[in-house]
């Protein structure tokens, strides 16, 4: 076993539409918005670098990185939300999240973020149910909205946002001819 920061049993939380439970969340900035991910599935945070682009993949797949010997795909959430590409800057980081697909095999996925903020405790009462529209991203990607310091933080629904099955299907649809032609 590599010395990864396995937090809990490593089981992904899969609340689909119900609002998120309270607990510890990692907040990060992406395209000017503050998002949060439940900390249970987060394995580690690394600096952005040495990414290998994989051709013929949709824009939301940035490429792959070498995470201590295993090849981990890196997802651009901004592209996944349909808001363009994340530009790389000094504070850009990759959050490694453990996901599970239908086939029941766990896969690590990296998420490009503009900056990682902090780990916060969010109580259940602070969490509002997701709005049906207006948050700027697909409602099913959101598990709740939490208010922090007078601002809303979007709690992401990990299982939906990083659904390997859905992303695979999307890439299957978009592959065909090389993007360069």
């Amino acid at each position, binding site marked *: 076993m590599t010395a990864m920061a396995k937090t809990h049993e490593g089981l992904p939380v899969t609340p689909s539409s119900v609002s998120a439970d309270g607990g510890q969340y990692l907040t990060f900035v992406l395209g000017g918005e503050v998002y949060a991910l439940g900390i249970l599935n987060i394995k580690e945070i690394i600096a952005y670098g*040495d990414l*290998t*682009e*994989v*051709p*013929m*993949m*949709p*824009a*939301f*797949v940035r*490429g*792959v*990185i*070498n995470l*201590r*010997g*295993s*090849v981990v*795909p890196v997802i651009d959430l901004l592209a996944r939300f*349909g808001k363009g590409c994340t530009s790389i800057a000094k504070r850009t980081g990759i959050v490694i999240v453990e996901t599970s*697909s239908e*086939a029941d*095999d766990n*896969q690590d*996925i990296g998420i490009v973020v503009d900056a990682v903020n902090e780990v916060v405790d969010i109580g259940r009462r602070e969490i509002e149910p997701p709005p049906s529209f207006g948050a700027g991203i697909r409602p099913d990607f959101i598990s709740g909205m939490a208010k922090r310091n007078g601002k809303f933080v979007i709690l992401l629904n990990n299982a939906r946002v990083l659904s*390997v099955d859905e*992303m*695979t299907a*999307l*890439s*299957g*649809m*978009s*592959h*065909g*001819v*090389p*993007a*360069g*032609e």
Partner: protein
Amino acid sequence: MSFDEEMKNALKTFTLESLELLQDMEEHLLNLEDDEAPAERINAIFRAAHTIKGSSGVFGLTHIVAFTHVVESVLDELRGGRIGVGSELVAALLPCCDHITLLVRNVVDGRTEEDAALTAEGKQLLDELNAFTQAAPADKAVTEFKCPREQLQKLENDSVKDGNWHLSLRFGADSFRDGMDPLSFVSYLRTLGDIVQLVTICQALPPADEMDPETCYLGFEIELKSSAGKAEIEGVFEFVRESSIIRILPYGSGIGEFIELIDELPENLSYLGEILVAAGAITRHELDDALHHQQNKMQTAREQGNAEAEAAVPALGEILVKYQAVSEPVLNAALEKQKQVKEKKNQEAQSIRVDAERLDKLIDLIGELVIAGAGVNLRSRLFADEGLKEMTGETMRLIEEVRDGALQLRMVPIGTTFSRFQRVVRDVSKELGKGIDLIVTGGDTEVDKSVVEKIGDPLMHLVRNAMDHGIETADVRLACGKPARGSLTLKAYHSSGSIVIEVSDDGGGLNRERILAKAVERGLIQAHDVLSDHEVYALIFEPGFSTAQTVSNLSGRGVGMDVVKRNVTALRGNIEVDSRLGAGTTMRIHLPLTLAIIDGFLVGVGKATFVIPLDRVIECVALPEDAGEREYMDLRGEVLPLVWLSQVFDVESHQQRRHNVVVVEHAGNKAGFVVDRLQGEFQTVIKPLGKLFTYIKGVAGSTILGDGKVALIVDVPTLFEFCERANRHAEHALPAPSHAS
């Protein structure tokens, strides 16, 4: 661990072992008829059935016990020689073997309860089987131990009969003085059985004037017909044992029984003498005597300090024979047994069962170690420290050795896959009504386990195809002047770092004209196209291609060969066909030895690095300066289509001039990959890209370079496919929609 869990684990072991035993059983059954001395095989089959029955009982799987019990008793009859080996019996036993497998598999799936339908099926099989035991005529009964008995009778005297003992008595000189009368012993022997023959040996008698009337000079050779055991007979001579020479040998079938007994002994008796004692061939006294004798000699030899003499001390067996304690055949059987026990022990010590997952994990880790090591090596060159360089170099060498060793762990002989086909050939040839023999060579050729697992299905297709379409019916064969029985050969061997598997038949061969006609009919080629044999034969791998005039339930529907081809390609291998009309066809599959490692050729395009599998690379040439952005180039008069990797893979290439071309080959087609830099060969561990990249074309996986960066491995076949399709799109001027979401 709770009791339930323990039971679960034990049950898993039981099923695993049972399935292995059943596999052995099947193999032995298949080879039974051809074996000249089948006793060993019959015993192995019996033991397998017996073990399964016993273990099933432990787990309360009564239905398996019930079924196996009947099979076991039939096998027992067979073992006892009461029924003979025959193809009908084998044909009846094979489905029983399958049935037990089915029952065990049900247990694997968690259905430990009896299944009524299966039981009914089993009942039918058993009825068929029982017919053999009931119908077995008495005169057929001697097949089993005939051989040893015949040998024995030649060795001993022809006049002896079954159940007899041969006693060699040499009474000690002091017998009379000790109050022992040889006559009384002989009389006493009568109470144990009938003395058939008695020869008095009086050669020891000195001339009359020298003879001491109180000294016994007599010896007897007695043939005794008795049901008494050896110890009992020896007991008769208890009082003269010290002073006399007494050898008791079993005769005739008696020895047969001893051999049988020795075979049946529990295997933990590895000591030869103990074997003989336990078998009743010698008694404890004789063993002790012999041992004593051996020790004496040893001691004398040691005292003299003579190593040679020590080595020359006869082995226990020799001593025993010399002293006529056992006859040679019995001794040989015991020695054989001792050897078997030893071998079995060695085998057990030599192989351990390891969870495949653990092994994969280890190999993964070693892969990482190689990469990390390469990184260290690279770093060390930045310092002007000779010692450091030397040490990292040495570490790298060791790491690579460890990696090779670890990969070796995954290597298994391909024979296990081949042996499966014995059954297939037998069944299919019966179904087709053709006599076909399977010849297997090179079964011990080793290949990675993952390759072995995946090659079974393609091989199955090829074997069935060869039997159905390749090998003709007996009358056609005879008319062609070939032997009536067809032969199918499975052959494996290593060749330049890959494994080659050949499936060849001595059938009709591929009909070039018919393939051509069919290909034209299906529009695959034009009627006026000129094709080489190789190209013609390659057509049979086209989807839906079949020239068979009749469709059987085995093959002929044109599904299969393209699947074979696809499977082989997926294993990074290729397949080629050799055929001579009327003489047969050979399908030759080349496969890499392992799927975990690849010999790659590193190329650079812009900032990116790609790995092209080395076995696809033919040569590297510089792109002529005047070539521009053309789609083809002139390779020594040949038109070489070009694939610009920078375009296909959408990599920015800053280089304007001095491009290189890597000439690659796939399925007889050549193409040139245009790259910026050639970086040389690189042996590396393949890392799968994961599910997310399922639909990617032209990339087979990834690997991690020495500097820690990930490089993509080019998948030549799919890239070819991809380019062909892109080309077709361009031709039809259909701009393909590109929806990058």
